[in-house]
């Protein structure tokens, strides 16, 4: 694997993480991180949507009329999101999770990461790097989601993936962790940790 491709994949996960560095997709990361299960499904959905819509837009990039490119991108993204939503609704295992995530699956359309990556990367690059870039950004977003959900479910409900962990030890649930402000605080802590490790992210 050449170094440029490696950079495409690793950058969105670490140095250019969409949530902690670019601060995109904050809304959904506050809303769907109460439980690991929901966060995992959301992370996978966003990864699939960013990956595939980047791929399609990259394949179409030479044919898209410049004046309507945003609309075309939006149509492609919306198509992917609706497909994911419809599929989630169709399976017995994912139906309750789709119900719980409710509007947030549909709102992936407005997630800045998706459109941002298409505009910034997919329209100027070949299909395969675009696909990888989309997927990597989804993974970068998903990782943060899972970390936040891990803390929130563990200390908010005493469980992980619905299985009792702390609650089995007699832990009293912390209601504050369940509420959205706590997600913001955890997110802030993650950004703090990341910035103190990667010194070049700090502004002078």
């Amino acid at each position: 694997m050449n170094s440029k491709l490696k950079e495409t994949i690793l950058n969105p996960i670490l140095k250019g993480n969409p949530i902690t560095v670019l601060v995109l997709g904050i809304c959904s990361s506050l809303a769907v991180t109460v439980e690991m299960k929901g966060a995992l499904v959301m992370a996978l959905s966003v990864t699939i949507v960013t990956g595939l819509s980047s791929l399609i837009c990259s394949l179409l990039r030479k044919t898209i009329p410049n004046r309507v490119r945003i609309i075309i991108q939006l149509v492609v993204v919306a198509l992917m999101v609706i497909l994911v939503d419809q599929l989630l609704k169709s399976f017995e295992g994912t139906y309750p999770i789709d119900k719980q995530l409710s509007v947030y699956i549909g709102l992936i359309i407005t997630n800045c990461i998706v459109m941002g990556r298409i505009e910034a990367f997919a329209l100027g690059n070949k299909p395969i790097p675009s696909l990888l870039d989309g997927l990597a950004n989804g993974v970068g977003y998903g990782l943060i989601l899972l970390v936040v959900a891990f803390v929130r479910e563990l200390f908010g409900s005493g469980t992980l993936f619905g299985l009792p962990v702390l609650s089995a030890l007699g832990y009293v649930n912390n209601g504050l962790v369940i509420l959205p402000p706590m997600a913001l605080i955890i997110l802030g802590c993650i950004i703090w940790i990341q910035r103190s490790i990667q010194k070049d992210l700090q502004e002078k």
Partner: protein
Amino acid sequence: MNTNSNTYTVIYTTLVCVLVAAILAFVSQSLKPKQEANEKAETISQILTAAGFADKAKWQEIGNAKTIEYYKDNIEASFTINGEGEKVDYLDKESATVFSTSELKVQNRDVKKGEEVTLPVYVFSNGVTVFPIYGAGLWGPVWGYISFDESLEKIVGAYFDHESETPGLGGKIKDDPSFRASLAGKSVDFDDVKPFHIVKGGAPEGKANAIDAITGATMTSKGLGEAVNVWLEAYKPYFEASKCKCCPSESEKEPCCEEAPATQTNE
């Protein structure tokens, strides 16, 4: 080729739209049966939860097929009634037919307008009767099921669901088990201003047809209260007809209590 010309742009966008619409229509049509099956199992699990058979989480655990099986094993009679509280039709037991949320939505329109309605009643073999409710919350529809004991005097349990109420506030109608539990043991009084009260600031001590509203969710509580009352009023003739203590299960195909004064007026 000039991709910036008007003709190209128009043709291109038209093609993309038609193609995307075709894909979506195809996917939606081919996945519909599966989605409807999931929705039906969800509705049945909500009815069973309201009837107090088990907690909502249990139905998810045992899966769709077993939930429907459980419903079939325990349902005594499921039928529809009209605005006068008379039985109109039986819902098919073999296929576990229930009114879906969208069917309730259609009926809700008629209930509010005072037009002719067809409302479902679910009677379980342990005597518990379940009635649905439907209305508007703050951001979207709220609906649910309230179950009564054999004599229709005491509420046994309830389950509420919503489309888009605020999580942690209005969402508590669904997520907070203690709110649902607060209905148990209460009763409904049709002689009161409203049959049932959801009181902001706390229900008065000893009032049998009132519960506390949810703190921080005034509008959702109001909407839910309205939904409960509008629908209970629609079921009022059925409540009155059943006061003569004849259980619907005893006279399977005949209308309940022909001699009762409540139904005589409708002849």
